[in-house]
């Protein structure tokens, strides 16, 4: 029944957070700071993972295409759809759950155990709203851009891996990318990134905010936040796919 307690506490935490900001200008500055953190701060890892994932998908697809009846340009189709539908929104969000989620939990958890959150409360500031709301809004705003960039880099990685090794011609790959392109798939990826941004930031903030103890507990909370947000991303991925694609 412990999960039920956390489930209830999580929604009470969400309710407490959704209030009118004490001072909009302060929240706006926080929002911009978090956009910079989550967006610009994640570019390196996102670029690295995307390029290599795209390259691996392309090479593996070529490796598995043994039937001479299947045209070579289908490598481009498979790479494009795998990257846009699954690898960019889901795998990158799992990576970001590790990077951003653990950072949010550590930051808020440390503020909790060093009484910085108590200091905010005593000043009359809604600490949940002040600390968490800018993070959630920033992530939900910036994640779709990050995912678009990831998809672009993934496809570029696939193109480079395929053409530079001579396994597929540039014309075939590009024809495959353009063949039967469904714009809705991009919308679907953006919807997923939007939902996963919410999951990552709220789960991480919840764990940080309810940390009790010291450095050891902050570490444990960070681990829990990454584990639970990853599980919720995978469950959410299945539900969204079932609801929006099938």
């Amino acid at each position, binding site marked *: 029944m412990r999960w039920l307690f956390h489930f209830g506490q999580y929604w009470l935490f969400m309710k407490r957070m959704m209030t009118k900001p*004490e*001072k909009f200008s*302060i929240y706006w500055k926080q929002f911009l700071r978090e956009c910079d953190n989550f967006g610009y701060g994640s570019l390196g890892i996102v670029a690295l993972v995307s390029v290599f994932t795209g390259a691996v998908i392309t090479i593996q697809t070529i490796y598995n295409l043994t039937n001479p009846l299947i045209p070579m340009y289908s490598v481009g189709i498979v790479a494009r759809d795998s990257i846009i539908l699954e690898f960019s929104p889901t795998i990158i969000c799992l990576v970001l759950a590790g990077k951003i989620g653990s950072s949010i939990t550590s930051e808020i958890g*440390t*503020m909790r155990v*060093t*009484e*910085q959150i*108590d*200091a905010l*409360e*005593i*000043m*009359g*500031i*809604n600490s949940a709203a002040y600390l968490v709301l800018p993070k959630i809004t920033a992530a939900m705003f910036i994640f779709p851009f990050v995912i678009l960039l990831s998809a672009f880099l993934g496809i570029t990685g696939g193109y480079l891996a395929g053409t530079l090794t001579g396994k597929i011609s540039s014309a075939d790959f590009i024809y495959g990318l353009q063949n039967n392109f469904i714009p809705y798939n991009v919308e679907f990826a953006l919807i997923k990134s939007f939902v996963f941004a919410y999951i990552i930031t709220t789960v991480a903030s919840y764990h940080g905010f309810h940390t009790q103890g010291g450095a050891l507990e902050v570490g444990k909370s960070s681990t829990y936040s990454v584990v639970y947000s990853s599980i919720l991303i995978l469950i959410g991925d299945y539900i969204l796919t079932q609801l929006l694609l099938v």
Partner: protein
Amino acid sequence: MIELKNISKKLGDREILNNISSVFEKGHVNLVIGGSGSGKTVLMKCMVGLFEIDSGEILYDNRNFSSLDFKARTPFRKEIGMVFQGGALFDSLNVERNVMFPLSMFTDMTYEEKMDRVNFCLNRVNLPNVNNHQPSELSGGMKKRVAIARAIAPNPKYLFCDEPNSGLDPRTSIVIDNLIKEITMEYDITTVINTHDMNSVLEIGDKITYLHQGKKWWEGNAEEILRTDNKELNGFIFASKLAQSIKKHA
């Protein structure tokens, strides 16, 4: 003036505070002393609204604080300054921004007005020229002084300090004690300090409340504490040989 009327508080099944009543006067340094686990930190957290009391009343200048919800307490909170044991400075902000924070949040002061106030408060705690330092670059004593500057920046009516001397060397402790005493008298505020620093008790305690096992065991001033025959209080305050010799010569 802060008035406590029959405050009781349980955490789980454990009774932390049992029927505590006291009055903390304006313009005085009111000390709450007691051993570890005596309930003084919980009492302070109840007084500032971080914990809810189970029964009793907390009155700020005859205004009932304990019966209000979080939102209704906001006007009260703007009159409260608190110095935490570890300073609780915001790591992401430099010294200047830390002190400016309550002003930015709750006033419509211009940037220049806020800077004037920040510099005034930092000068008041004898910390000029540290505006751009990060909290991690400060010593323990400096952190406490910045925390005091942040607490007094919005001109509070009530100042709470939770063990302001913990972890400080004796000389810095005296500086902090004197600073709090001066600020209390200068701005005529009600100051409540949790401490188990013997020097603070004798030097700045206008009124001393001793908690033992969650109950108010003794109340008096620094003069009276030297002559008390309260067994538990004597055992707590005069535990060291140095303190015993002070009592002998009093």
